[in-house]
């Protein structure tokens, strides 16, 4: 029983754990930015007045959100990187990092786009009409009037998407970038045996990342709410 809650190994390997979580953070942070940008592009496509763009947006979002992330990551690292030799860098770890970021960003962007589209639907039609009536083009009114209000109304749901993304780093990590926290946990299990304390140590590490993120988005969505 005493051994079951013996955290000595966790503390002995704290440096490795910290380094692996730092890799997770780098993965998640860059993915957050890229998936937001890409998701905004898809959402803009889906509300565009051009039928072709609307079609492309719908197709891409449905394709991405209905494909398992494991497959997407495996496709990136095996097919695109290993077989077709599309390399971001000659250094394998750097190449793996960017393919992991790519797979996760592309995947997450579909969910960002859907959250954002729900947000666009909360903006009253009159806002777009007023924007058009003062002579703003479609792109201008989307950028200056519609999207800023849409973003503010879906900060909460976007937070959930980003938390899911942080947890999904474990999947792309396992497939493409074997130095982030979940991969490190696997390595430590392999070296030291799978123990409950080690498991708890890593679980707490993820909570340290995701819980504050959740609180932050909750606070932000209250602060940024648009009064009507």
């Amino acid at each position, binding site marked *: 029983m005493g051994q079951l809650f013996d955290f000595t190994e966790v503390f002995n390997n704290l440096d490795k754990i910290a380094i692996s979580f730092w890799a997770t953070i780098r993965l998640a942070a860059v993915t957050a930015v890229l998936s937001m940008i890409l998701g905004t592009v898809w959402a803009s496509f889906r509300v565009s*007045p051009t039928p072709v763009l609307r079609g492309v947006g719908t197709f891409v979002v449905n394709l991405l959100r209905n494909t398992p992330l494991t497959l997407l990551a495996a496709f990136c690292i095996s097919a695109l990187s290993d077989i077709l030799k599309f390399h971001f860098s000659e250094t394998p770890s750097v190449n793996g990092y960017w393919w992991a970021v790519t797979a996760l960003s592309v995947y997450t962007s579909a969910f960002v786009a859907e959250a954002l589209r729900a947000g666009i639907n909360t903006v*009253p039609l*009159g*806002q777009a*009409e*007023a*924007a*058009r*009536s*003062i*002579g*703003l*083009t479609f792109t*201008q009114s989307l950028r*200056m*009037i519609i999207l*800023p*209000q849409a973003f*503010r109304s879906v900060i909460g749901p976007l937070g959930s998407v980003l938390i899911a993304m942080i947890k999904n780093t474990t999947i792309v990590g396992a497939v493409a970038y074997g130095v982030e926290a979940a991969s490190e946990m696997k390595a430590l299990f392999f070296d030291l045996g799978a123990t409950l304390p080690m498991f708890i140590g890593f679980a707490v590490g993820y909570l340290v990342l995701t819980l504050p993120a959740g609180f932050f988005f909750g606070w932000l969505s209250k602060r940024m709410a*648009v*009064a*009507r």
Partner: protein
Amino acid sequence: MVDIGKGAGDKGTSDNPPLVVLENVNKHFGELHVLKDINLTIDQGEVVVIIGPSGGGKSTLCRSINRLEPIDGGTILIDGKKLPEEGRDLARLRADVGMVFQSFNLFAHKTILENVTLGPMKVRKVGKAEAEKHAMELLERVGIGTQAGKYPAQLSGGQQQRAAIARALAMKPKVMLFDEPTSALDPEMVKEVLDVMTDLAHEGMTMIVVTHEMGFARRAAQKVVFMAEGQIVEESTPDEFFTNARTDRARDFLSKILTH
């Protein structure tokens, strides 16, 4: 410019050149024929009030003039130019046509000042300092200069609508469209908005106003257009219309709104 008006019926009432010309305009919402062969000419500086029962096509007509509602037949000319289809040309034309909505539609995430300066800065490419100076003049003129830093939701309905008028005026439009500007307001706020509109009319702004405010029509309008079932039923001066309507349909409508 050549005389665009075709018959005596669709001539403007003044000697000024025509600014907005609608010729055989038709519009359907599915099965519903909402605008039937509309011919209407509005001269420069003219104030036209459009009245009539709800569902008669007044708002649709007003909104079709800056193509918030596309039409499916006929032509609309503004200052001699045909209304463009979608795209950059249409945006440019809309900048010249001010619009005031029933539900104000101020940009909810921007302050009153930002609402007024946005169009001039992004569409007309006016510098920030100049846009703000002009915006403050306009806000003072409509009596809400002290509210410039607030957000729309912090203002009363009457103040919001006056801000919306200032936002439209900031683009220095050739013509202003008002789509039931006082219908969503509490009674005591109607006057403050109508006062601003009356001043505007007396300063020579070309205005097309969809409204039920008969007082405003008498005070400020040169022409009253009575619409029902998608058609222009009657077109005359306010005095003539309110005292001596020619058609039964108009007399019936007036008896319902004037006797209470």
